[in-house]
């Protein structure tokens, strides 16, 4: 909706100009990158490879293995780790969060423990995880799991705890029993927050994945990123960064789509 106003700039809309500016900004960025590396040679390829080189590295590594596998292999390994870690964390965090929000006693018992563990960044668990589970799948799943677990748990708990009491009262006076209230009111009402928690959690889990793979792994995108640095092949690092970025974007898009499906009854935020 637009409105012919005398207001400040940000009340108006300069749509076409925006598209042009945005496009030229991205193109300009890539062009400058190209210019300072390939054309003018201001920055040696050891520091920053040209976009061309990155592109060809990606293309090449689809067929030629790096380390133990090709690019697809590394993406697959990372994907597997994040899927397993996330699944386990969600299976634990969501029920625990609901129970903690519902049963006051459980809340009292769990809260102090969680409050001690929560401020520890999940990445700080890496050394211990390696000690406990070795450098295989186990330690990565554990760390990713920790990353996903806490935001999901906290949001689920808050979602259950802060359901509008009037809705609960309404259900009760309409004849709903405790378990009906949980199923019919509390769960649906807390879904938006739960999904938001999962979204934060998966973002964090991606970071944990990269960190864990960078510290100790022989496969995966984090390994690729680290290998590039160790072997002075920054194009390899950038390849890994691009792929992990794409993975993150896809994951986020997926969750947003799910959110739209599940929270269909909530008005979209007006400022998008």
């Amino acid at each position, binding site marked *: 909706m637009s409105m012919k106003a*005398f*207001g*400040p*700039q*940000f*009340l*108006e809309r*300069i749509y076409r*100009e*925006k598209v042009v*500016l*945005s496009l030229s*900004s991205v193109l300009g*960025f890539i062009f400058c990158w190209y210019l300072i590396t390939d054309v003018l040679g201001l920055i040696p390829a*050891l*520091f920053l490879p040209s976009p061309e080189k990155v592109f060809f590295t990606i293309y090449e590594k689809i067929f030629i293995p790096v380390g133990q596998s090709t690019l697809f292999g590394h993406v697959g390994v990372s994907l597997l780790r994040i899927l397993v870690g996330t699944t386990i964390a969600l299976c634990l965090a969501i029920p625990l969060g609901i129970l903690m929000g519902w049963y*006051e*006693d459980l809340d*009292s*018992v*769990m*809260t*102090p*423990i969680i409050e001690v*563990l929560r*401020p*520890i*960044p999940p*990445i*700080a*668990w*890496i*050394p*211990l995880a*390696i*000690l*406990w589970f070795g450098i295989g799948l186990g330690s990565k799943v554990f760390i990713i799991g920790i990353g996903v677990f806490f935001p999901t748990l906290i949001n689920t708990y808050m979602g259950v705890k802060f359901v509008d009491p009037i809705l609960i009262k309404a259900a009760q006076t309409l004849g709903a029993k405790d378990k009906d209230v949980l199923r019919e009111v509390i769960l649906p009402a807390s879904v938006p927050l739960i999904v938001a928690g999962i979204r934060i959690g998966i973002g964090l889990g*991606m*970071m944990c994945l*990269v*960190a864990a793979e*960078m*510290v100790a792994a022989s496969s995966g995108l*984090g390994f690729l*990123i*680290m290998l*590039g*640095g*160790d072997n*002075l092949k*920054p194009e390899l*690092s950038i390849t890994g*960064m*691009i792929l*992990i*970025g794409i993975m*993150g*974007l896809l994951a*986020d898009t997926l969750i947003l789509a799910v959110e739209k499906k599940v929270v269909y009854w909530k008005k979209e935020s007006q*400022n998008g």
Partner: protein
Amino acid sequence: MTEDAPKTLLYENGAEGKICLTNILGNLMVETRKIRSRKRVILSVLSVIVVLGGWFVLTTVLRWVPPAFLPPPQNILTDFFRLLNKSYVGHTLIGHTLVSLQIVLGGFFLAVLIGIPLGIMMGWFKRIEAIVDPMFQLLRPIPPLAWIPLSLLWFGIGISSKIFVIWLSAFVPCVINAYTGIRLTEPLLVKAALGLGVKRQWDLLREVAIPSALPVILGGVRIGLGSAWMTLVAAELLASDAGLGYMMQMARRALEPSIIILGMLIIGILGAIMARGLQMLEKRICPWVMDKER
């Protein structure tokens, strides 16, 4: 105690108040809440005792869990006091902590100083937004710690490479929140200010947009701080010769889990203290934000 309480209330109200049922009921409700909160404290304390006790019993009394896997809790304490003045892989505990703090705070403050003004400008000026935002959207999905190898390549293994990565990790939430906060400025308030005689854009920004965005901006600062701590640990685990992350990495190689856990606890506590400090600052800066919105 429980029985006395209603009488106290009647007594307090006695001078002029009526003895009415709602008063008594209300007081009983307050009383049950008190009981509930007392129960809560007891349960919480019990839970901590059980966890610590179980840990102690498993590792020290029954010795079912080998110390190389999970050290007894008292070992962590003794290690803490031991490392206070004895150096471990190059520094004492305090030395490592100071190295880490210096990097975190350096990167974090740089991020706040650059990120917030940039975000505000992006929110206020459509053209700046149009130019900067797409690049931001391109770089944002890449986890900041994935920049570590490139950063090492660019800045060497010293402090600057780590500050760069930490700056990056705190910078993104600072910019995004400042930008969102300004964009969410209530148009009605802008109209009100215009109608009261504000004419210059700058006054509008200063008096309306920035204060209304402030809670969101501070939220971004808080996220940035958490992000900075996390990235610091990763950077120190990967490439460092001092700092808490480095200490933990070395302890892992030497199979000394008690020092690892010590490092985790210190990182957690420092992070929590700084987050709490920020929260208190928020309360000072934005007294108009109600607690439930925080």
